[in-house]
């Protein structure tokens, strides 16, 4: 099986979030980036498990600049065989999906694995768009995937239960929690990643379909107010006048 795993970078969850350019751009200054957890923990690790069980090849694909190379090397250290980075500064979902789809058309894969969303913009769009552009089936929010020949049985968590879907290759999935258990690279993997191929390709022609006008931060959390259990009047007054909940 040839598996393409699409990875994106995301700010570490402890990062301080700030914006520049009239609140239209994320301020990356001092931010530490990681592999988007859904891409790493679930999409990549499940792909590696499939390769380890039945052979094949796992290729990492990233759309971005050279500053993404550290997260690509980490994916290689965890066990992917090779990597491709498409040199592009786009952040628009459709434009990213077009880059991935164009590359995938020219380099055949049996399966394309993405994470269910990035933990920064939470768009959940790219994987579905890639499938549409490739005209292949798409299964979102996959929490389990087993393979028999060219047929995959995939579980999806849905409201109140689980949906089981069957699909044949080629297809695209977006991976969610449950697909695999996160792996920590070892030193041999880190050393091997030094020499694994990372090919940089120029961007394919595409145009942004959307443009971010502004970001705003949620209001700061206010401190808890404690009301004495016997003081119902004050509680009602606070809920009515301050919280405006009743």
């Amino acid at each position, binding site marked *: 099986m040839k598996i393409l795993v699409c990875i994106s970078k995301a700010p570490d969850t402890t990062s301080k979030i700030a914006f520049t350019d009239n609140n239209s751009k994320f301020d990356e200054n*001092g931010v530490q980036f990681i592999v988007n957890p859904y891409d790493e923990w679930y999409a990549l690790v499940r792909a590696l498990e499939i390769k380890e069980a039945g052979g094949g090849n796992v290729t990492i694909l990233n759309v971005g600049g050279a500053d993404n190379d550290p997260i690509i*090397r980490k994916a290689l250290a965890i066990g992917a065989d090779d990597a491709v980075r498409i040199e592009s500064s786009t952040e628009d979902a459709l434009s990213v999906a077009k880059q991935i789809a164009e590359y995938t058309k020219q380099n055949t894969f049996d399966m394309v694995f993405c994470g269910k969303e990035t933990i920064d913009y939470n768009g959940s769009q790219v994987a579905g768009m890639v499938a549409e552009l490739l005209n292949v089936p798409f299964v979102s929010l996959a929490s389990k995937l087993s393979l028999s020949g060219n047929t995959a049985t995939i579980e999806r968590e849905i409201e109140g239960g689980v949906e089981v879907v069957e699909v044949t290759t080629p297809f695209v999935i977006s991976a969610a929690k449950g697909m695999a258990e996160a792996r*920590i*690279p*070892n*030193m*041999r993997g880190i*050393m091997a990643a030094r020499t694994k191929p990372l090919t940089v390709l120029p961007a394919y022609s595409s145009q942004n379909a959307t443009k971010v006008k502004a970001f705003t931060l949620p209001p700061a959390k206010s401190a808890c107010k404690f009301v004495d259990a016997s003081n119902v009047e004050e509680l009602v007054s606070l809920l009515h006048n301050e919280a405006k909940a009743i």
Partner: protein
Amino acid sequence: MAEDRFQAPDYYNLDELLTEEHKLIRETVRAWVKKEVSPIIEEYAQKAQFPKQIIAGLAEVGGFGPYIPTEYGGPGLDQISYGLIMQELERCDSGVRSTSSVQSSLVMYPIWKYGNEEQRKKYLPKLATGEFIGCFGLTEPDHGSNPGGMITNFKDMGDHYLLNGAKMWITNAPIADIAVVWAKNEQGRIHGLIVERGMEGFTTPETHDKWSLRASVTGELVFDNVKVPKANLLPNKSGLGAPLGCLDSARYGIAWGAIGAAMDCYDSALRYSKERKQFGVPIASFQLTQKKLAEMITEITKAQLLTWRLGVLRNEGKATSAQISMAKRNNVDMALKIAREARQIHGAMGITGEYSIMRHMANLESVVTYEGTHDIHLLITGMDVTGLSAFKNDGTQF
């Protein structure tokens, strides 16, 4: 123990001095520690047991001989990577770092540097995977700061050496498969010998009731007419400089490790002081708490810079023993002081196993003494700058 919420301070953006691979190595060890060691370390320290189940994982993340070349089973990393691994291990517990330090710098290093090819091929790959655990015998009951006075000795019996003597305060001794032992030959010259568990007359009684490094095992090495094959003598270096070369490597790792312990204490104290309220406000808003925290981060930042520079010098093969002494002494002292201040910020909670502070503090009381005491390292610096030795005298005035 509470959840490991550690976040590393980097006040001077020192990450910019590291390569991406250095950072990946550090994050890898940190993630492994948080997943595999932090949840159990307090329990094992309280029980005074070494968590043997971490050995395989410790090997996987480069804890055993990070700088040993790949041809001998090591990952072949540089000295800054070694330092970062020690920092992350000691961030969790000095005992875990000690196990790793001893295996790396005091067992694998001398076999790699002073051993022959057969010895390297025989022992290093198994030490790198943790299949073999090693220990290092230099200190004796009556010879600590003055190892050159050792009485452990060996005689050439023709087809083997006959080893007699005893070593004390030996990390890993009770669980070790091999020991690198320093002993004098009949001419009084110090040589290294590899002694294997199972050799007749070789025993490793455990040292009990320690208040420090409780999650690592310590013991003695007793040699009662032990027949050591001649093939087990390290042939490529002899004299006191041989074990001191190993100590240079280990002390360098300790200098990094101590920063880890200090960072953990600072990080915990900073978080606690912002969460803990007295007089209606977080205790972090009080001047005396801020003084403690500000001095902690200042000292950590200075130690980070010192150690990073020492790592660059080590990579270039230019670091002197005296420079390593300065870093070991400064950083362990810094960490110990920070642990004590952090304990105060945590109030009574600081003495419980809910927080790592008291464990770090007790551990560091060993670290400030082993691998050259705090005072001896000061005298090494003193000797280096004056050219005069203050820690040797002929005893005639007493």
